[in-house]
């Protein structure tokens, strides 16, 4: 078996994917903290009760209503928006891996990565499907 070094292309891709993850997590954390500050300004005396499960209202479950409410700086929607950025971060990592494999013309991994991306999209858009 011949020796195989981690070539510079792979190294570049790893650095880039690392940046994607870092930027995604930091952006998400920033938005969530901003939402938290807004929350304490808007609802400072409200009690939290999570001992009984009641599903979140529909407006805090769908991307388009969350974005619309976050634009009006409604605290819960701003936090949800931050959480959506977080969920999207690994998906972005997979997407940019796909670009990387396309640039490297690595056919097997283009197929593999596309499959993973499809599965993730199925989950992310499940709210709009009957599921």
């Amino acid at each position, binding site marked *: 078996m011949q020796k195989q070094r981690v070539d510079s292309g792979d190294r570049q891709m790893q650095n880039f994917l690392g940046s994607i*993850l870092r930027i995604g997590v930091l952006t998400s954390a920033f938005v969530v903290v901003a939402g*938290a500050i807004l929350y304490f300004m808007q609802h400072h005396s409200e009690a939290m009760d999570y001992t009984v499960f009641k*599903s979140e209202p529909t407006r805090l479950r769908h991307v388009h209503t969350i974005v619309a409410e976050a634009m009006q700086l409604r605290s819960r929607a701003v*936090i949800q928006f931050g959480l959506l950025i977080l*969920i999207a*971060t690994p998906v972005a990592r997979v997407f940019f*891996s796909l670009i990387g494999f396309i640039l490297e013309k690595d056919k097997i991994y283009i197929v593999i990565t596309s*499959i*993973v991306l499809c599965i*993730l999209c199925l989950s992310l858009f499940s709210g709009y499907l009957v599921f």
Partner: protein
Amino acid sequence: MTTLFIVLFVGAILAGFLGSLTGLGGGVVLVPLLTLGFGIDIRYAIGTSLISVIATSSGAASAFLKDGLLNIRIGMFLEIATTLGAIAGAAIAYYAPTHIIAIIFGFVLLYSAAVSFRKSKMAEDLHDQGKVKHGRFAQLLKAKGTFTDKTGGEVDYKLQHVGGGLAVMTVAGVLSGLLGIGSGALKVIAMDSIMKIPFKVSTATSNFMIGVTAAASAGIYFSRGYIDPVLSMPVMIGVLVGSLLGARILLKSQTKSIRVLFAVVIVFLAIEMIYNGILKSI
């Protein structure tokens, strides 16, 4: 509520710290903490945990990526199994009664504890490369790699039993989606024990995969309303801070003693989860 906010935040820092240090993820501590400690409904706990698992994984993985330890290709391939499993797990969680989920959680915790004990013995083992049978499937996947060890030397490795690895990864995905944990222990077993990937590479790649796996089920939990913004914010930020601290230390030191301590804590939590599950008080 400010007190609860602060306590949740501190608890989440601890969970994230231990989770990334041991490679097991923050979820294994977080869900019992939220349900047993705060009496929070397990569905909220699982939703919140999934969110923080993504934060832990992505935060720690960016450090691992810089280190060049992980294998992006094999991770991506195995993610087919973990994401499909995660979606199945989230679907099962929708129909399973909560006390059954608590009992399953308890047994998975016990298993994680057993793995932690075992790993503390063999963490530094490098598999005998002469014995690794590089199968046709592994060759097709170009599944091999190189990493730089502590002394600065480059170590090449191959891997075997890709099918067995895939099967265990599917189970890891189901448990992740069902219980809101990263399933790091099982992922490491699939790579390290079955596929014979060096332990440090397995841990780093596992951490990398956890985020994608959790995102697959988090999308479903999110659209079902299991993820509450007010509960998630202190937990997510806390876990993130804790995991970044943990990742720093992991890259520098041996984690043997912490593993054993962590295993003892997990056994205790596991018994509590199973007990409360049987009493149907969860």
